[in-house]
């Protein structure tokens, strides 16, 4: 069976970040001698090189469907990559320390595409459920708690748009760039925000995207705006940011309680 080996070699050696990398000893197939190789894990592909600076991998192990097990063997820090089929080869590898072994076993056992997809679907579901209803209490000031009410069709479209969003993520060097809203290195939550805003004192609004400003009218109608089915990812993103900014201000005010 042909494989796009040239592209594989490029993928292995290009600048994209690896999920793990380091020296491991690999036991040979026919002979039980161990060979020290430089291993690079990217996604569900485990590449191995003769040397750390080799230009091309010697080989690759496709990890989809594998199990990773610790070895009982006397050789220190050994572990095995096993596959389901009866005639499948077991890859025995050994690390150079306990810490390395644990790190590799952890990263290899979760390296499958299937696993990643599972986690993504779970988060996608969570996000859709959060944007759908006031169950989390975020919009408590606007809607009564209780079972979710049927939503306008615009919100349905927005949910689908949410699922479609990753296709147009801005990216740099294969990494998502997401820190473009609300000065996002600060997270809302119990640890407190950089900004705060009380009714009487010096207003310190939370950092906002430079082009937009929160206005009460806009924020209050954020729900309605979402229902109008924004046609671009940017608009949807902005709507969420306005909503979150407004809610965060409310939360800050409520947390401070009545002023003396």
């Amino acid at each position, binding site marked *: 069976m*042909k494989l796009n080996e040239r592209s594989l070699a490029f993928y292995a050696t290009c600048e994209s970040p690896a999920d793990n990398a380091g020296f491991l000893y690999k036991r040979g197939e026919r002979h039980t001698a161990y060979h020290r190789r430089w291993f690079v894990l990217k996604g569900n592909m485990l590449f191995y090189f003769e040397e750390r600076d080799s230009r091309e991998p010697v*080989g690759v192990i496709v990890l989809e469907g594998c199990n990773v097990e610790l070895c009982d063997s006397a050789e220190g820090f050994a572990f095995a990559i096993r596959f389901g*089929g009866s005639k499948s080869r077991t890859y025995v590898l050994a690390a150079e320390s306990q810490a390395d072994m644990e790190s590799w076993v952890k990263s290899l056992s979760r390296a499958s595409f299937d696993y*990643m997809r599972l986690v993504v679907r779970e988060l996608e579901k969570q996000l859709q459920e959060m944007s759908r209803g006031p169950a989390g209490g975020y919009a408590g000031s606007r809607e009564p708690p209780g079972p979710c009410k049927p939503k306008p069709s615009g919100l349905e479209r927005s949910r689908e748009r949410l699922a479609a969003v990753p296709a147009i993520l801005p990216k740099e060097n294969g990494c998502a760039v997401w820190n473009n809203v609300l000065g996002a290195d600060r997270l809302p939550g119990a640890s407190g925000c950089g900004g705060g805003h009380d009714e009487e004192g010096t207003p310190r609004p939370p950092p906002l995207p430079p082009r937009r400003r929160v206005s009460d009218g806009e924020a209050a109608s954020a729900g309605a705006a979402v229902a109008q089915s924004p046609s671009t990812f940017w608009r949807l993103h902005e709507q969420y940011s306005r909503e979150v900014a407004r809610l965060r201000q409310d939360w800050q005010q409520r947390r401070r309680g009545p002023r003396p």
Partner: protein
Amino acid sequence: MRYNERELLSLARQPAEKAAEIRMSVPKKGSVLKKRLVKLVVNFLFYFRTDEAEPIGALLLEHCKITKEEENVFSISFIEEPERKYCFECATEEQCLEWVEALRRASYEFLRRSLIFYRNEIQKMTGKDPLEQYGISEEARFQLGAHRQ
């Protein structure tokens, strides 16, 4: 490059996300469009002669570009060799667009970007890292920028 062919063949036999008979050509001189069974499983695209059980070939869909070409046609090329194209001629434009959409989302790297995006969105809205409950929030593959070689 050595690879575990047995496991890859086994993967080719698993239920596909998408499969269809599509006319396909490879980036070789004189290559013509031939009817193939094309099967998408995780981040691999396998292609078979229509009457055979074992694939002729497999494409790992990482760092590739899916281009919509003329009507009913799309192509796959890899970013280091953009002129070498695998061309696919579908039966209908609709089928063609479906495949383009599916293949663009079929890479591990795309999934990773989606995960980072959702993780961040949820964290912004709740103040909590949604991966904590699974005990995987510290894993390299879920961080921006991950592990540098």
